[in-house]
């Protein structure tokens, strides 16, 4: 950690953990090439580091097969210029990134056909959160951390329609518990866990989505953690978007009009017909969602008593009225 005098850690010192999507299947199809994207991002990272002397930047690559740290501004002691050409920061970052990409490529066994596959966001989010916890541990005064996801890959198949997927998880629940080889849909749960953990430690997750359809999942992540979500209209001007929206520190945000979340849908889908519903029945044992009253839970097999939820809520109401 930077050993700056602690009083210098004012409210505008930031630690930005940037999660860069390096999924080759996305960048192959994107209108913005990966090298153009990198030049936007490098300029943005330099800008953050120059905004405040104590600002810190950590870059984590979110690959298709793996994730890894590729840059940490606090560990690079020499911020000087090398032969007057490129700052050491850029060259070391690019070198690490190249190593990472080669390794990531070697890990893929076969090229997936069909639509673009998702990248491993849950892994890089978890790593970012671990890093941020370390900063929290470093003392009472520390830079204010936030996470910025620069994501292009679509939500994974397991994240497609968020709560339809819950039903899939549930139909797999028993199978998972029985066979104990359930890697299949864990990633959805993993991403939700990371979001809730970020919310608990008050770390906002900003997200900039560069893919075609907007990512329902990143919208929720930013909404739940109090971050900003934005989908740039013109990718050529990515740098401008990054600077105007994502460069401001958390303290200054309260004075700015940043993009507001629009239409985050918190409704759920029932497991029986996959309809989106306003009101439904929840199994008290496994929390499966149904649109009608059933006699038996199709997920966990519990047998239900009579529909007494109406009666219960009526009695609750009765109990509450004198107090209000």
């Amino acid at each position, binding site marked *: 950690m930077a050993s700056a005098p602690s009083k210098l850690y004012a409210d505008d010192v930031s630690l930005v953990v940037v999660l860069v999507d390096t999924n080759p299947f996305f960048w192959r199809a994107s209108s913005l090439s990966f090298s153009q994207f990198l030049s936007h991002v490098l300029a943005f990272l330099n800008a953050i580091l120059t905004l405040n002397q104590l600002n810190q930047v950590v870059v984590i690559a979110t690959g298709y097969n793996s994730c890894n740290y590729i840059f940490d501004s606090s560990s690079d002691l020499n911020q000087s210029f090398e032969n007057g050409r490129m700052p050491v920061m850029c060259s070391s970052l690019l070198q690490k990134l190249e190593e990472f990409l080669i390794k990531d490529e070697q890990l893929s066994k076969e090229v997936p056909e069909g639509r673009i596959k998702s990248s491993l966001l849950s892994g890089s989010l978890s*790593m970012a*959160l671990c890093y941020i916890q*370390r900063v929290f541990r470093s003392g009472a005064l520390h830079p204010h951390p936030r996470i910025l996801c620069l994501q292009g890959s679509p939500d994974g198949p397991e994240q497609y329609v968020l709560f339809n997927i*819950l039903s899939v998880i549930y139909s797999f629940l028993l199978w998972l518990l029985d066979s104990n080889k359930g890697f299949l849909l864990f990633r959805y749960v993993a991403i939700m866990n990371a979001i809730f*953990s970020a919310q*608990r430690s008050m770390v906002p997750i900003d997200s900039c989505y560069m893919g075609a359809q907007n990512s329902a999942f990143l919208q929720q992540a930013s909404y739940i953690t109090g971050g900003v979500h934005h989908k740039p209209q013109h990718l050529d001007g990515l740098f401008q978007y990054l600077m105007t929206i994502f460069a401001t520190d958390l303290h200054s945000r309260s004075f700015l009009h940043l993009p507001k979340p629009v239409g985050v849908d918190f*409704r759920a889908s029932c497991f029986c017909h996959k309809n989106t519903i306003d009101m439904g029945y929840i199994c008290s044992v496994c929390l499966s969602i149904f649109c009608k009253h*059933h006699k038996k839970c199709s997920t966990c097999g519990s*047998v239900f008593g009579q529909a007494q939820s109406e009666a*219960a809520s009526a009695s609750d109401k009765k109990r509450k009225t004198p107090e209000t």
Partner: protein
Amino acid sequence: MNNGGAKRMNGAGEEDDDEDYVNGDLDAWERTYTDERSWESLQEDESGLLRPIDNKALYHSQYRRRLRSLSSTATAARIQKGLIRYLYIVIDLSRAASETDFRPSRIVVIAKHVEAFIREFFDQNPLSQVGLLTIKDGVAQCLTDLGGSPESHIKALMNKLECSGDSSLQNALDLVDGYLNQIPSYGHREVLILYSALSTCDPGDIMETIQKCKKSKIRCSVIGLAAEMFICKHLCQETGGTYSVALDESHFKELILEHAPPPPAIAEFATANLIKMGFPQRAAEGSISICSCHKEAKVGAGYACPRCKARVCELPTECRICGLTLVSSPHLARSYHHLFPIAPFDEVPPSNLNDPNHKLQRNCFGCQQSLLNPGNKPGLLVVCPKCKRYFCLDCDIYIHESLHNCPGCDSFRHSKAD
């Protein structure tokens, strides 16, 4: 108060001969030493120098114990967890709670940790409800009704912290029993009693009350602040709860937070049922309406009950107008990590580390902290049994207590995954 058995070190403080004084006779500067017992946080190393106690290893071993006890119950069978809990917290505000063996007094310590507990509880059990009860002057009183908003409970508690009179276990249990009998049958009924007194002053036969609680399927747990009492132990044994006595403040915190994760459900304690719930949508930005919870006109950012269209400010809650339980889908997702726990990490034996064939990761996979102690000696570290990545102790605790994801496993694509 002046505990002569306390670990005293030469040179730890200058006031070595104040031991026999009673607290009141001490000067203010002396009292700060006896109160804080600053010497207890020091230990002697091999060369006789004083060092702060290495709390890290200590905390970690405590945490490992907790984790093991949790995972042993979880792996024993396909354990069903009681995810919908109705918990009453009973706080003993009798004379004994004003004792100052906890600093600054028992009741202040209790209040502080109950606040933390309530927040943690709702974080882990978003669909559950809590109520507060106090015992004072031999009478049990209801401080707050069962509800899902942490703020209202904490506010009510902080206003009522005067202690007086005797404590009565029976009155408290009778009151709780009356309240918890009203709740729907799918809920798990629980009582957590924070008991300071060493006696109970009861109007009748407490054994009958205990049997009544047992019949009503209320799981009673007690955390004592003084010493173990037979009646508390008996109560917990009969009703399936846990009884523990806190040694000091940090131990108390640990004990109370153990009650936050959902306990394994006992099948006959709560019958499965379908609960009617609403998933409200966010009201349009800029719309003005009167919210039913604060009874104030507010602009934008609220949720509308799908049944009666009343407006509420935050989720999860119960609609004040029609009584429908209102949740959002992420609240349901939040409970899932209880259903999919991650495996505890294995401690790496020191002999493995010196093995030259064993290629050791230099940094913690999670936070990139160097795993080598000063002097290039590897410190304590843990390894994930699945992905074989090494983690530092701090990350281990964070991963299991808050994140519920293994960064190592998640950042490697399994061949089976797609």
